[in-house]
């Protein structure tokens, strides 16, 4: 076997910031992000490309960063989970996962958030089937898929452009306006379960967002 080549410098833009670091040929992008750049939000799960925990956006496309050598990403623009929130302000997708309990242990969450980000770019208003297909490359070992799907639906509504958003938010509002029927649809019951600090905080976030826009 020939001698392995020495590490090469890899330049990437991650979450809008330029980074450079050294990577051996065999260094996977996920390890480069975590260990060389210190961006540990991207998780290492199965390492054989099955679980999706390491998903990042590479030049605008969702990829598994464990199926890519760091040197292949030289010159690329990368979005990781750290780049979703702006300052203290959570991204609407993150808010939706928080409000809808779209995570249990949280290990798959960085990948799930980015898979959602990519899905909603392609399909702004996905059906449940499209959501499930869209996150089929991301495994949740807690099997919390019901709430994850719910969170993605909620995220889609949050991210709708204003005119459609107004039309959309009427739906759930109208449903909750009639609380006389205690056996309301299954989709509205979980939000009832979450009544309390989380919900109120979520709502205040929403207000802030509306103020901003």
């Amino acid at each position: 076997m020939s001698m392995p080549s020495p590490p090469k410098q890899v330049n990437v833009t991650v979450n809008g910031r330029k980074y450079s670091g050294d990577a051996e040929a065999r260094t996977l992008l996920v390890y480069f992000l975590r260990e060389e750049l210190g961006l540990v939000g991207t998780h290492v799960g199965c390492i054989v490309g099955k679980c999706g925990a390491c998903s990042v956006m590479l030049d605008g496309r969702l990829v598994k960063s464990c199926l890519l050598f760091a040197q292949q990403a030289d010159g690329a623009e990368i979005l990781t989970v750290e780049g979703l929130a702006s300052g203290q302000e959570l991204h609407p997708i993150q808010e939706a996962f928080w409000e809808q309990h779209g995570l249990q242990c949280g290990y798959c969450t960085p990948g799930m958030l980015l898979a959602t980000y990519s899905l909603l770019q392609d399909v702004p208003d996905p059906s449940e089937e499209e959501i499930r297909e869209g996150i089929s490359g991301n495994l949740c070992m807690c099997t919390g898929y019901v709430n994850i799907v719910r969170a993605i639906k909620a995220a889609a509504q949050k991210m709708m452009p204003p005119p459609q958003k107004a039309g959309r938010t009427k739906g759930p509002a109208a449903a909750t306006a009639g609380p006389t029927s205690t056996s309301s649809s299954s989709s509205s019951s979980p939000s009832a379960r979450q009544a309390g600090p989380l919900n109120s905080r979520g709502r205040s976030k929403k207000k802030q967002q509306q103020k901003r826009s």
Partner: protein
Amino acid sequence: MRLSRSSSSPSKKTYLLWGPRTAGSISIMIPRPFELHTPTSISEAANLLRELKGAKVLAGGQSLVPLMKLRLISPANLVDIGKIPGLSYIRREEEDGGEKERGARRRRRAAAPGDRLLIGSMTTHHEVAASPSVVGGCRPLSEAAGRIGDRQVRNRGTIGGALCHADPAADVPTAAVAMDAEFRVVGSSRERTIKAKDFFKGVNRTSLHSGEILVEVRVPVLSPRSGGAYVKLARGMNDLATIGVAAAITLGEDGACEQVRLALAGAGPTPVRAARAEEVLTGRAPTDELVAEAADEAAGMSLVVDDIRGSAEYKREMVKVYVRRAVKQSLGRISLG
């Protein structure tokens, strides 16, 4: 850069998981050290492959990288063709640059049978699946590409990579065999064209010589009065096919099948063309009974074996079911206008 914080010997760092292909636990690791070459032209890549014995081509890496991490293969040299410009495209043959003059003359005609789609080997599965010209002209291929892996894999995996990996349970090779695709391959000294039926030689084996690179896939566009489909039985959403069937059918004016093309994934060491099933249908009106008869023929000739995806007996039954579905779906898509 250090790959491991704790271990003094990074290459010994191992992780445990339950393996998809073996019972019990298997060790998986970071790949063995290798040298990564990034040529910027085909000829440079071909020369590298000729000089470096045993070097592997890295395309999208969605099959190769896992194999290297599992250390099932450990090439000393990888030739990354991802930085070579001009290998990612989908276009009609007429638009081909080399034949501009004749192309201009030909373009006046409407899409005729015999037209072909040219697909660059580094075109991703997502691009193939989403391309209107592939969906419109070669439905089995677009559907096969759309059923590969998941979003992440389709965004990165390439049509050329899937073909050269030559997994007999893979979707795209089966569609290519059904569609009578041709592959343009370039070596360091010459280029040649290989027909899909001559390309696949066994499990993960192709007729590519060492040093040759697949650069273009040429797929005939389905003629009018044709329909095609790719249907797949898989464990979960992301696995290779337990059984996959690619079908393309052309009906004559009299309602009889003029041309029938059927290929099976997961039913032999290579994609299998179900010739006897095609013969049953060709020249006759595709009644339910006849389609069932063709499906039985396909099951009879398939070389299914027991493996992790199911028993041979089960797969043989599924060949019948999925051939029927593929044929019916194809027939349903034929517009007789």
